[in-house]
């Protein structure tokens, strides 16, 4: 099973900290700076999971999830949303788009890894 994770966030600090946490737990990962960049990486590379921010330029998280769910390669992989607010509105919009779950920012590395492990199995 592919446990390589694509981390999508327009904030370099968030990308880096997620990536460092994943590195520590041994999950290979790759970063993308926005939804558009993520789609390009998804089309050329193979991932077992996506962790994405919502508010991003070019293509936001909702848009990315919708597109990813239409691609064969990513139709059934877990997609976690990194949100700054855990409002029901964001959750339900995320669910409607096809998100698997959410992580609330600012997050702690252990929390993130717990969720990743839970979803990725």
């Amino acid at each position, binding site marked *: 099973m592919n446990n390589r994770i694509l981390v999508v966030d327009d904030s*370099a600090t968030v990308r880096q900290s997620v990536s460092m946490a994943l590195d520590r737990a041994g999950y290979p990962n790759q970063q993308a700076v926005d939804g558009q960049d993520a789609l390009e990486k998804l089309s050329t590379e193979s991932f077992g999971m996506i962790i994405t921010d919502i508010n991003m330029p070019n293509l936001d998280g909702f848009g990315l999830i919708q597109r990813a769910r239409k691609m064969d390669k990513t139709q059934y992989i877990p997609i976690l949303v990194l949100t700054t607010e855990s409002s029901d509105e964001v959750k339900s919009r995320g669910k409607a788009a096809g998100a698997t779950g959410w992580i609330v920012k600012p997050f702690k590395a252990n929390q993130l890894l717990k969720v990743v492990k*839970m979803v990725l199995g």
Partner: protein
Amino acid sequence: MSDILQETFREELQELLADLEGGLLKLEESPSDSESVNRVFRALHTIKGSGALAGFDRLAGFTHHVEALFEDVRSGSIEVSSVLIDLTLQAQDTIQALAADEDSVSQQDIASLVEHLGGLQVDIIDAVVSEEETARDDMPATVGSHSTFWVRFRPPVDVFERGLDPANLVRELTRMGDARVSAGYDAPASFEDFEPTACHVVWNILLTTAQSTIDIQDLFIFVEDESELGIELLDDSGRLNLEQAWQAWLPLFEAGKKPTAEDVNSIIAQNDEPVPEHNGPERRSMTPDRRQAATDRRQESGSGDDAARVAASVRVRSERLDKLVDLIGELVTVQARLKQVSTTISDVDLERISEEVEQLTWELRDEVLSIRMVPIGSTFNRFARQVRDLARELGKDVQLLTSGGDTELDKTVIERLSDPVLHLLRNAIDHGLELPEQRSAAGKPVKGSIRLSAFQSGASVLVEVRDDGRGLNYDWIRERAEEKGMLQPGEDFNQVGVWELISSAGFSTSEAITSISGRGVGLDVVRKAIEDLRGTVEVESSSGEGTCFRVKLPLTLAIIDGLLVRIGRERFVMPLAQVEEIIEQNRTDVERQHGRDLLHIRDEIVPYLHLRREFGINGRIPDIEQVIIANLDGFRLGFAVDEVIGEHQTVIKSLGRMYRDIPGLSGATVLGDGSLALILDLPALMRLEESRSRQDGNLVPVTTQTFS
């Protein structure tokens, strides 16, 4: 906290602060612009969040207060005022200082700024960073005796479509303690209703664990709303034998029935000895191999953080990139020598290797140079604040409009461009734009505008600073130039010449320069900086309508594609980007008109220069010359040489002081055989030619036309 993360944050912060500042300045112009309020808020929000992640706690805490303020602005309870903008700009500087060194700002300073900010709020919110989620994480798991739960879980039918494998959740659950699992299939009534991607599984799990109901519930957080989830505590005495209970109760579970207290007691009575306190109970996992794999993975990661990093992007210091470019330069030079040697030896194998090396070198060069390309926009944003402050200082009302921020240029070029462009901006505010009252008297909008734009044109990038001010004072320039003997009385100067004049050292006087642009630097410094970047400047101006300074820069500094030519025994390189075509010219066809050599090319007359004459090279001119036709900003000019040798990847070396002032040369390069070739500065040669024609009083207009 990791240094890498802090460094990343500092870099990111520059963009965020630029964005914040951009939003604030926009807001100052149009206080009701909700998009700008959002922009400011988002920037602050990200600064706070990312700052906290990177371990800048004081920075995050301080930013939080500013963010709270803008939350009120967003909700409409605080109005946008100049006090708000000024305070927030101050806060921005504080954030900057905190990022550089968290201890650099005293607690009093922060407290006083926070107090000022708070003064703007209707009611001071003593806000605390939302720790709801993290608090729960920190909460120690309920430690106590082991409890046994019956968990019944039917995931939503569309669970796979949301990318979640419910089996993973069940597996996680089994890892919480000792567990028994049964999965039942809840098939649809008819085959017609069957959907292959739908999930029709119902799980029954009996779990003995030290954890609580909430911990179990947490696992199902993503699906709890849509799932059927039952978590029943059956026993908390720790005396239940799991295996026996499982055997006895499975039929009940499958029927959806909870065992009664009597059922529980009867199992305990069967085997009345407590389950030993266990740290690692033997767990029956659904797929042991998968668990093994997970363990392996964890072990691997312990020993090899580096290995896991491979796929992620890597940050490198820019000096290392510079070093890389230097090395590529050396490689290109060595490769040229290899090519030369292999041609001389004419060994087929060697030639093949040489060709491959050449191909790889080219690819490597392009790749490395492209890594160094960055958008110019970040530099643009920095100017916004400076323009604002300067305009205030001078009592002028100015708006800065930028475009083309995504135009990419070599990093070094961008860094070194910042000062000269800032100087041009200052110049425009100070000298170009009139005072508000003068503007309204002239029937112009009171607010002056400065347009800063960048765009790519062929192998160059053009950066323009255009103001709508009073325009250049040609009379004054003429007077001054004649005074300095740079212009003969009555001599005409075209607009290219204007830049030459006003940017010559000592041209401006203190009388014409105010405190701002007169801080020891004149346009001659701009000219020097731009020419060091192998760029050129053009000025366009019309009285009363404004002035435009157009800076033309090469995309990259280090290596160019050149055309290698020979004159006598000397060799020269011309930038290939400027070369349009090469014409063979029989000496007998030469036509001279008004002292200029002219060439007929497809019904068009193109003047050309004899470089041999230009550089005073002796020897016999061959009967058939090669004339290289260059396109220089729309002008066509030919350069006659003895022979065209071919394309040459030119690693540019700067000339020593002795040669630096020779017009027409821009650098030198080392050829394959180790000898030197000089790089020609074609625009400078053209200017030389034009000024000469002007002096002859026989200016033949160079043909202008558009080229495809």
